[in-house]
């Protein structure tokens, strides 16, 4: 569907159809849930952090294709990152979506993440694209502890 190339790019469609890192994470020690009440999108992001590094990340949730694909991108790209690098990535994605591809150097949002730039042209959908990333930002700041939902 070529006319949708700008938005539902192959990457987003791929992550929507085959979400990475979707599911529970019983070993998580950081968790944050975000909701967008205006459209009902939900995202819970779970991290297992060890020695300042995200060793595992996973999400659960429901919502529009963009919010779920973005959550899949978030969980899969945060895994393995040092804490500071993860926080920088969250900030870079937010800038990419809000301010457009010109606002961030391409190495700041590597690989598939660049696809999220397509959401910039749709201001009404910024909240969808950023939901998981805001959950990630919150999880990074949350106190360490067992994920009660999973306990």
């Amino acid at each position, binding site marked *: 569907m070529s*006319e949708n190339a700008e*938005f539902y790019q192959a990457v987003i469609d791929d992550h929507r159809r085959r979400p990475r890192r979707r599911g529970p994470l019983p070993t998580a020690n950081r968790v944050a849930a975000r909701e967008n*009440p*205006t*459209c*009902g999108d939900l995202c819970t992001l779970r991290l297992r952090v060890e020695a300042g590094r995200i060793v595992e990340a996973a999400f659960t949730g429901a919502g*529009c*294709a*963009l919010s779920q694909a973005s959550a899949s991108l978030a969980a899969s790209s945060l895994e393995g990152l040092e804490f500071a690098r993860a926080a920088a990535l969250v900030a870079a994605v937010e800038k990419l979506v809000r301010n457009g591809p010109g606002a961030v150097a391409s190495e700041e949002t590597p690989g598939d993440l660049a696809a999220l730039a397509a959401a910039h042209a749709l201001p009404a*959908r910024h909240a969808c694209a950023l939901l998981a990333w805001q959950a990630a930002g919150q999880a990074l700041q949350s106190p360490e502890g067992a994920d009660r939902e999973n306990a």
Partner: protein
Amino acid sequence: MRPGLETRPDFPVLAQQVNGKPLVYLDSGATSQKPRQVLAAVDAYYERDNANVHRGLHALSMRATEAFEKSRARIARFVGAADPAEIVFTRGTTESVNLVAASWCSANLRPGDEILLTEMEHHSNMVPWQLAAARAGATVRYLPVAGADAEHGLDLDRLDEFLTPRVKLFAFTHISNTLGVVNPAAELCRRARAVGAATLIDAAQSVGHEPLDVQALGCDFLVFSGHKMCGPTGIGVLYGRKALLDAMPPYQGGGGMIENVEFSGSTFKPAPERFEAGTPDIAGAIGLAAACDYIDGIGRPAIAAHDHRLGELARAALEELPGIRVLGPRAGSPRAGMVSFAFANIHAHDVVTVADQQGVALRGGHHCNMPLMKKLGLPSTARASFYLYNTEEEVAALAAALRKVVKFFG
């Protein structure tokens, strides 16, 4: 002139491409497009007559005042009001409701009283009453929508249970912006009167679409926005029966609404000026009167028949699509010219974004009725709404766009 194709040259905005496709504007329920005649009336006012109203003694001010008051009289005629003084200009439906909720409620609502709404109200006919009730120590109750899936009309069998003498005011929408249900407004007003409750009708979705007469409806208040009926944004109307308006305290204070001001206090003009503090939207009122002329030039019975026909065509076409749930009245019950729908596995935002890529403008979301959405068990729906300038070809374009949506997300 008949609704449909013949009207399209009057709407310059419709003759454009969006995302490389001809624009198919199916979001008139959110705001309608404006015909040249309305734009010209606003331009002519600014080019020839612009001045402040009610204060100047010079020629332009007198012309502006005359045009403003003529507009009021035109709008009174449009809704069947007995007296132009029953027409208060506001910013729109929302401000009109807030005006009554602030002013009428402060004089009439006591602890223990009830305000009755329905579950299908727009937030703008819900939140102001919640605020007023909290101020007065009163309670807001909601007449439920009927049907196992909660998407049909109001549950009128339960009206007596809710419409008790404790109810001081019953506010309800004429046409639901979410379901397309047409409520039996005259009957609801009659039943409210029987228990001594005042009535307010939210006519935002009906006044530009259907024949409407406040005296035949028997309501105390009726509110609407200009922008949903071919008029400009920023102007709206509160119709109130003269006796009620004159007994209500001011809403906002300022110039234009006072009789006499002393440092120790002030006295106020009667309605409608009492409720129009400050310089009003003069051009908006003139544009709205031009919109009344335009609509009546086509005729509201013809517009209603046209809208309903497109709504029914759309409903029938959409029900063919796999995995769709079309909301609203059962076949045969009154349905306004709109169709809300939801796909089992496709979020409304995705529907709207992909339709937009086909040039088809839809609304997607909770339609400013979060509690109803919760009851429907849906986070959001998509909606196509029709008006006098839409065509059968556009219904076909909608169906084609939605087939692409299904194919893309299927």
